C-alpha cells in the first residue's frame, strides 16, 4: 500500500555552531515556499531516520514563516538524535518534519516570566523574538546554564534592553525560582523549559500558583486524529499475520500503514467509506458516520475504529 505523505519535506539550508556542542539548523522548503505556520515557542518532530524521530523547539519568530530554526545540543549520552544531527547532517540534506505543535500563550498586560535552563532557551528565543517584533516589553528572561550561554546573539536586542538575566551556575548561585517568580507580582505568568531536574524544582516553586498562570514546556505528543478507544488493544491483520498495539489516542491509520495493510484511506474521519474492512474478532467500537447497524455486524470503518475487546482482527 502506498503511503500518504505525512511530513513536511525540508532542506537543511544552514548549519552553524555558535558554541562547541550547540548546532543551529535552518530548514527551508526547497523553493523557499512558506512553511506551515507556528506559534511562538512551538516545537516540531524531526524524522531523522526510520524510527529516529526527535522533537525540538523552533527558535525563530512565527513571522519568519519561510524557515524553521532549531538549536540542538549534542547529548553524548542521549539516544542518538542529537548525535545524528551533529555528525550526520549536511547543508543541502533533506529532513522531513512534522507540522508544528504547541506554543505559548502570553499574558497581554501582566509580566511574563521566562525561566530557561541551558539549551531550554530555544522556545524562549522564539517567544522573545515574537514579543520584540510586536514591541512588547512585558517579559523577563532568567537563563542559567552550566557554562557559557549558548545562543545569546539570537536574543541580543532583549539582552541590550536589560530584559535578560544570564547566569553561569559554575560560579553564580543556582537560581532561586521561588524568589524569581514572586518578584513580578502574583498576576504574572511563568514559563519554564530546561532539563528535567530543573523542571521539577521549578514546579515545586510554583506549586501554589494557579495552573493557568504556569506553563512548563514538556513536548506535547501529536494530537490524535480520533479518540478511538480508551483502552489499549491489538490490531491484527489476518492475511499477513502482522499486528500492532494501539495505545489510547494513537492514530490507527498510521499504524496500519506501517503494517502495510491492504486498506485504502482517504478522509481519515469516518465519512467517506474508503477504509471499510470486514472484521473477524473484536467487537469493534464503531465511530463512523457511514455504516448501518447491519453493515457494522460484518464491516468496520477502520480509520475511526476502536475495539471493545483486546484484539481487533481484520480480514485484510
Amino acid at each position: 500500500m502506498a503511503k500518504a505523505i505525512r511530513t513536511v519535506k525540508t532542506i537543511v539550508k544552514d548549519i552553524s555552531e555558535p558554541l562547541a556542542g550547540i548546532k543551529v539548523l535552518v530548514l527551508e522548503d526547497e523553493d523557499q515556499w512558506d512553511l506551515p505556520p507556528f506559534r511562538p515557542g512551538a516545537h516540531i518532530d524531526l524524522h531523522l531516520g526510520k524510527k529516529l524521530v526527535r522533537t525540538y523547539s523552533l527558535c525563530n519568530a512565527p513571522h519568519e514563516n519561510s524557515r524553521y530554526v532549531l538549536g540542538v545540543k549534542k547529548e553524548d549520552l542521549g539516544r542518538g538524535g542529537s548525535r545524528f544531527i551533529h555528525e550526520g547532517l549536511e547543508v543541502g540534506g533533506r529532513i522531513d518534519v512534522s507540522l508544528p505543535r504547541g506554543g505559548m500563550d502570553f499574558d497581554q498586560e501582566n509580566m511574563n516570566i521566562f525561566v530557561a535552563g541551558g539549551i531550554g532557551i530555544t522556545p524562549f528565543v522564539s517567544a522573545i523574538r515574537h514579543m520584540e517584533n510586536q514591541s512588547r516589553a512585558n517579559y523577563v528572561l532568567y537563563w542559567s546554564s552550566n557554562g557559557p550561554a549558548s545562543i545569546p546573539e539570537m536574543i541580543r536586542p532583549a539582552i541590550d534592553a536589560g530584559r535578560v538575566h544570564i547566569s553561569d551556575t559554575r560560579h553564580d548561585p543556582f537560581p532561586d525560582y521561588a524568589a524569581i517568580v514572586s518578584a513580578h507580582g502574583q498576576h504574572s505568568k511563568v514559563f519554564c523549559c530546561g532539563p528535567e531536574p530543573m523542571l521539577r524544582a521549578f514546579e515545586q516553586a510554583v506549586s501554589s500558583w494557579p495552573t493557568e498562570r504556569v506553563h512548563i514546556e514538556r513536548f506535547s505528543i501529536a494530537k490524535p486524529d480520533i479518540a478511538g478507544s480508551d483502552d489499549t488493544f491489538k490490531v491484527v491483520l489476518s492475511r499477513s499475520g502482522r499486528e500492532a498495539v494501539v495505545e489510547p489516542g494513537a492514530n490507527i491509520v498510521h499504524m496500519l500503514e506501517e503494517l502495510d495493510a491492504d486498506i485504502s484511506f482517504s478522509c481519515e474521519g469516518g465519512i467517506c467509506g474508503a477504509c471499510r474492512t470486514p472484521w473477524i474478532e473484536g467487537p469493534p467500537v464503531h465511530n463512523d458516520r457511514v455504516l448501518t447497524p447491519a453493515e457494522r455486524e460484518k464491516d468496520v470503518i477502520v480509520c475511526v475504529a476502536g475495539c471493545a475487546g483486546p484484539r481487533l482482527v481484520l480480514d485484510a
Partner: protein
Amino acid sequence: MTRTDSKDQFQGGVAWQGTVCFLHRTPRAFLPMRSFESLNLIAGRGIEGDRYLIENEAGFYSHKPEEGRQVTLFEMESLEAIMRDYAIELRPEEHRRNITVRGVPLNHLVFQRFRVGACLLEATRLSTPCRHIEEILGKPVFDPMIHRSGLNCRIIEGGEVRVGDIVRPC
C-alpha cells in the same frame, strides 16, 4: 419549471453564472496555499505548480493518483455558511482547494461540464473533507465541511484562469 431562453444558461433546471474570487496553489503537501491572480491550467494534467499536477505529484493524496482531481473548486458561500453556522472563520487560503467561486452551485455540477474563463472543466466528484485539515489549521472544520467541501474536476480545455473570470455552464 419554465425553461430559460438561453440553452447555455440552463443546467440542472437552474440558470446560474458565477465568478472566480480567489486562486490558490501550493507545491507540496501541508505547505500553505498561496494566492495568485492567475493560474495556468493544463488540460488532462492539472495546475502548473500545484501539488496534484499529474506526473509531478507531491500532495497528501498523491499515493492515490486520481485523474479526476486536476483542479478543485470551493464556494465562497460555504465559507460564509461555516462562519454563520459554526462561528469559525475559514479563509479562502485555508480550505485548500484551488479556485474559490461565488454564485456557482458546485454540489449540482457532478458529471457536468462548465467554463471557468476560457477553460473547460468536467466535474468528476464532490470533494470530501479530510481529517488532516484540522491538524494543518488547528481549527475544528472537519464536520462543518461535510457536504460543502468543494468539487473535483478534470481539465478538458486548459489555459489561464484569472481572478474575476466568469464561471458558466456550457
